[in-house]
């Protein structure tokens, strides 16, 4: 319980730090400090409203309090270019990002766990000798380049998949769920999800392999050997099940990581998610939107780190955080 409290406090602290760093970055920016919320193309009335809402005419510390207050009530300002509340724009993109990330991560995990266990089983053979360097090579490949190759082969070359976006133009659906389950959406999802999966599979794979190697030396595996069980049965029933624990808890960690990492994947495939929103907002100096997108991505990242830590402690009684520190 003490650990839970401390861990929650830490997450809150990190969120506060991110928010504060952002606040300072936007205020200390060279040029007009109002540029973070107001640009010339807004009408006189809009500018006036923004000034009051964000207290931009007050001293810095008062601005800071107002800023925190606005954040707590979900008020992120208006996008410069889309002229809509930032919150609404973010919420429209968020599901797309989540679907892409969860799909990519799931593929990565299924592949990583199976291949990782297999490589651990084949320890010392030529398969391991080739497999591990091969995995390292996929980790060294820039995601966006892998995405470009997939696009060149399967989209432009063979024409099997669309070149970008999440839905064909003109497609209309009654609900979000119906959209996600449509064949058109899945066809758009395939290449970006594969790219993301290829980028993410290294972590679960190497983790699975090393925990498998540890587990294979434990008493209950030796016991199973002595009982004369088949090697296959030992690997699947006894070793793999126990090795899965840290790998499963790293899933949440991977989700957070992927939310940051799929910025480039979303850009390559013009996937209408948070990452692409962030890139677009930054390159067009749409500060309120950029700030909002970064905050949301950071929020997911921090929460997922928290979930990973808690899950690890909850699932493995051997881990005691109160003793380590």
């Amino acid at each position, binding site marked *: 319980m003490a650990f839970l409290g401390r861990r929650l406090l*830490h*997450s809150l*602290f*990190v969120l506060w*730090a*991110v928010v504060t760093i*952002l606040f300072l*970055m936007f205020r200390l*920016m060279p040029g007009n400090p109002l540029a973070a919320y107001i640009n010339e193309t807004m009408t006189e009335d809009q500018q006036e409203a923004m000034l009051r809402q964000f207290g931009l005419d007050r001293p810095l510390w008062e601005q800071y309090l107002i800023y925190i207050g606005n954040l707590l009530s979900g008020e992120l300002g208006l996008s410069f270019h889309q002229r809509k509340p930032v919150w609404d724009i973010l919420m429209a993109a968020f599901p797309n990002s989540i679907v892409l990330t969860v799909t990519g991560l799931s593929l990565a995990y299924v592949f990583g766990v199976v291949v990782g266990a297999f490589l651990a089983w084949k320890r010392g053979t030529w398969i391991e000798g080739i497999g591990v*360097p091969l995995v*390292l*090579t996929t*980790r*060294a*490949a*820039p*995601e*966006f*380049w892998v995405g*470009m*190759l997939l*696009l*060149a082969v399967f*989209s*432009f*070359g063979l024409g099997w998949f669309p*070149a970008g976006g999440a839905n064909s133009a003109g497609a209309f659906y009654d609900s979000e769920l119906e959209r996600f389950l449509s064949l058109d959406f899945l066809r758009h999802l395939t290449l970006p999800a594969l790219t993301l999966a290829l980028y993410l599979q290294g972590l679960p794979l190497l983790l699975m392999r090393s925990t498998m*190697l540890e587990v294979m030396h434990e008493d209950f595996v030796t016991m199973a050997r002595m009982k004369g069980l088949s090697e296959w049965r030992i690997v699947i029933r006894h070793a793999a099940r126990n090795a899965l624990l840290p790998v499963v808890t790293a899933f949440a960690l991977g989700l*957070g*990581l992927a*939310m*940051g*990492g799929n*910025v*480039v994947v979303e*850009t*390559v495939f013009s996937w209408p998610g948070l*990452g692409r929103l*962030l*890139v677009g907002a*930054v*390159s067009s*100096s749409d*500060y309120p939107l*950029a*700030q909002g*997108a*970064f905050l949301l*991505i*950071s929020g997911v*990242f*921090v929460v997922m*780190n928290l979930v990973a830590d808690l899950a690890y402690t909850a699932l493995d009684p051997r881990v005691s955080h109160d003793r380590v520190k």
Partner: protein
Amino acid sequence: MTASSEPGAFLPKAERRGLGRILADVLAKPARDPFALAGLSIYLVFVLVALFADQFATHDPLQILFQPNGRLARNLPPGETYWLGTTHSGRDIYSQLVYGARAALIVGVTAAMVVVAIGTLIGLLSGYFGGWVDAVLMRVADTALSIPFLPFVIVLTAFLKPSVWNVVLAVAILLWPNTARVIRSQVLTIRERGYVEAARVTGAGHGRILFVHVAPNILPLSFLYGSIAIGWAILTEAAVSFLGFGDPRTVSWGYMLQDAFTSQALSRGSWHWFVPPGLCIVVVVVAGFFLTRGYEEVLFPKLRD
């Protein structure tokens, strides 16, 4: 002042794993491990090409080229004059590739040096002094690790002018905690060793103990983490340039890929344009992985199972 009059200087060195021993291991390693050998060879070629880029290149990487008949030399396939063909705006791809090595080397090495310097110093102070110094520094490290990496780099470039140094800065800000944590835990064990205790007893000050007795033992570890940072820096630079936030005057591999992507090289099937820069990134980064993987075993013999 002679060496023997310094406090702690008479202590036997046998307890330390001498730098000389480690150096000998480091040099002998590639001979036994084919992957380390491959990594080392790739690094050598990479550094040579980067240093002598102007010798290797056949054209100015940013010059817009014209054919003898006066037409713009755009989208040409690989040939005798332009070994890897030309870009959409008529620039020589091979020469860009060669200069890209230089950009990658500069970003990689500077970022690695900054990461090593900050990470080692923080790790040393945190591990050696403990107490509130440790608590504060490690909290800062935890916080830095809890910020999503690439989005942060992107937001940072929104405020600073696009340049290679943003990448170095961002990589340094976000990667030092990893190094610092490992160095710290290593310092915690070294701090308790006999020779450090002896130096303290003979009256050596904190500065002397830290930099003469503790630091040399963790330097190899710092270098290991530094070489991992090289790969990260190159990958980050590529991603940032690809997203269009790189330095427009520096020809890097990420810049080339962005140029190819936005000029429809994919739909035109200009494989000779968008495959080589990516391959170069993969080869250089993986060479770093192979090298560090091999050296982890040299530096921490216990890891071998």
